[in-house]
């Protein structure tokens, strides 16, 4: 039972990563609920030793890479399929390593799931980037399956080493 759930969550997150690595972005978007929240805040170096990691993160609605709802995320997805979005022409070659999957909560309707990631991106001839961090997802049970209702992505860098972020996490 607990095992089934664990397996289901792993399968879900691996499947999701696969859709992104295979650039099936529209299918990926279908893994989200309509009321989705997709948030990736800025992170900085505080002066005082922070009590919580969250003290290093920008507040909601302040500084972020992503703060998307379904519509704004949909537009990003369409861009990823557009011939006019130069940042992805030719497209990035990405690989997602999703690890340390932890089910933190389950109220029967929604699960809180944390996972760590390395997203490797290589593009053009020699571009290479590593994006490393953790994700905090709220997964909702929707007719027998799971959907992502809320995702918070914590990227560990204070200064982004990549020229841009034209991919998803």
């Amino acid at each position, binding site marked *: 039972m607990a095992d089934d759930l664990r397996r289901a969550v792993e399968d879900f997150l691996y499947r999701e990563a696969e859709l992104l690595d295979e650039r099936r972005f529209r299918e990926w978007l279908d893994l989200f609920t309509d009321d989705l929240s997709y948030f*990736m805040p*800025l992170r900085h170096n505080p002066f005082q030793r922070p009590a919580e990691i969250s003290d290093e993160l*920008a507040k909601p609605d302040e*500084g972020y890479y992503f703060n998307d709802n379904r519509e704004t995320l949909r*537009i990003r997805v369409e*861009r990823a399929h*557009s011939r006019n979005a130069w940042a992805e022409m030719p497209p990035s070659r990405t690989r997602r390593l999703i690890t340390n999957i932890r089910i933190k909560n389950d109220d029967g309707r929604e699960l809180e799931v944390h996972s760590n990631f390395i997203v490797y991106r290589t593009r053009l001839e020699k571009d290479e980037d590593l994006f490393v961090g953790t994700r905090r997802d709220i997964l909702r049970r929707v007719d027998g399956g799971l959907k992502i209702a809320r995702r918070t992505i914590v990227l560990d860098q*204070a200064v982004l080493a990549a*020229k*841009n972020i034209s991919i998803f996490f």
Partner: protein
Amino acid sequence: MDVKSLVDPEGGLVDRRIFADREIYELERERLFARCWLYLGHESEVPNPGDFVTAYMGEEPVILWRDLDGRLGAFLNMCRHRGNRVCRADRGNAKLLTCSYHGWIYNSEGKLVVVPMAEAFPDLDRQKWGLIPVAQLESYKGLIFATFDPEAPALLEYLGDMAWYLDILLDRREGGTEVTGPHRWLVDANWKTAAENFGGDGYHIATTHASARELGIDTTTSQARRWNKGRQIFCGNGHVLIAWVTPPDDAGPWFAQPVPELADYMRAHSDEIERRLGPVRARKVVPSAGTVFPNLSVHWLARTIRVWHPRGPDKMEIWSWAIVDKAAPAAIKRAMRSVSQYRFNAAGVFEQDDMENWIQVTAAARSAIARRFAANYQMSLNEETPETELPGRLASRWSDSNQLNFYLHWARMLDAKDWGEIKTTASQLR
């Protein structure tokens, strides 16, 4: 080296070496970044006594610090003893900063207040060993600038006509503006490729950002695009911007706003805005993007300000902030920041597409063959620009006049021995 020969305004040609040569870059460090007024931060980032942010002036790390009496100061982020960095945080609040090496302590005025084992420094004059302050520091309506050169003209004189246009972003509402950020990221491109782009490149939008139009997320409404009349404006001292001039049908200044909420917000406060800015700036002219020489760029419509920090000839570190009216309601601030960051940051649906162009323009400048051929800055639509009420020198939106003026001033700065010379040559221009 004869810097001036690198820019040919008549021929509309620029030598690619300006984007690649180490020698030119070192000259920039000495003659641009050690002499110009550079943007340090926004007053809303350091509202209270003791508040500080660490920033850069070119490649120089500095601390922008509001002292306990509320006065702003800026200092090289370096301990005077052996040279260790005194502050490693991005921001915070501190009465004192302690050096992690031998414990020298500086106060918020940059004064050296504690020297452990002071008795071992019999002749040390603490007055002489405080943090190294910038030569001048001034704010313009929330924007804090500093220069390492005591001979630099006053900030207002330096900004020239640019100030008049900056007001349109900074001075719309009582209380001015506030920022969030910065976004910081590294791009393998020369800083000038970005500065010139924001300073006049309306030309690239239709191609580079075609997807934005395709998906209806342009920084300007379709209305503005249809109208399609804009101006390049050169404000002297290298400052450049592009602006819309509202259509004859007097659609109003909001005609260019990217999203309806913000147009509505502007309408709702048009009286206050007109009271503060006057009729021309409130209704007639809508700046889109511009560059305060050398490396501060502003996007009035996307509400972002950003600095292109040089990190060598072929690398820059971008610092970008969203800027909003302080007096705006929370929901509008949220909308403004969303308009800004959704479009402009490393993940912005606009900005994503800019980087690669600048990277490749920089790469081409390293090519032994390519540098035999100068870059083309010959755009110059012959279009009447009758808006006599607008300060600065106007040209059609479809022109490289801003870029050429930017590089002409750049060459003058690199060529001039001191500010005296710069002022003369600059004044010759207008």
